């Protein structure tokens, strides 16, 4: 299945890109995807994940067509 991945702020710096289209195996979780994407990287301790513009639990199972985003804790306001 196909998903669209976005990276923001320090996570974008870590990944060296702001987005990518990926083909992944069915029912991968957000956390499993993150681990596979960062297997060769020193990852920050706090990363948040949103799917289709909603925060989700790290065990959230991805579906075909999902937009998933990884980013650090937010600092607006």
């Amino acid at each position, binding site marked *: 299945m196909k998903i669209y991945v*976005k990276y*923001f*702020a*320090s996570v974008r*710096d870590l990944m060296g890109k702001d987005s990518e289209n990926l083909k992944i195996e069915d029912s991968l979780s*957000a*956390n499993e995807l*993150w681990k596979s994407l960062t297997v060769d990287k020193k990852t920050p301790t*706090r*990363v*948040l*994940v*949103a799917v289709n*513009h*909603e*925060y*989700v*639990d*790290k065990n959230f199972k991805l579906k075909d067509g999902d937009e998933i*985003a*990884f*980013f*650090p*804790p*937010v*600092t*607006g*306001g």
Partner: protein
Amino acid sequence: MKIEIMNEKFDPWKALVDYKKNVLLNDSSIGATSVFVGTVRDFNDDEEIDSMELEHYPGMTEKYLEDIVNTAIKKYKIIDGLVIHRVGLLEPTDPIVIVATWSEHRDNAFNATRDIMEALKAQAPFWKKESTENGFRWVTPSVEQEENTNEI
């Protein structure tokens, strides 16, 4: 309700007065207006700030701001609410955010504006990068935010 992400420097007081005049008109049920404006300071964690870059997640940010304001409107019987938030390159004294709520009674407006600010800081996907004499640094939240967010 008005939710806006601004790419250019804006005048929060003009935006507030314009919205009140053009949208809320002379609504005579309003007894209380509570407003918060956040501005860029020239110091953070004992380092001088030259400028700040603010980025957001288009789509998700607006969605969360709308949800946050709607939650406050329902919880506190708010007549209306306004949030404008800057993104892009900001300098010290530039406005970052304005939150305004209108209600019949003061408790409700005070509580709604404060709740909106706290929820915005905890949930709305914005990120600050500060430019100091030692280079750039991503800002990290000063208070741990576990609510409504999920970490990997």
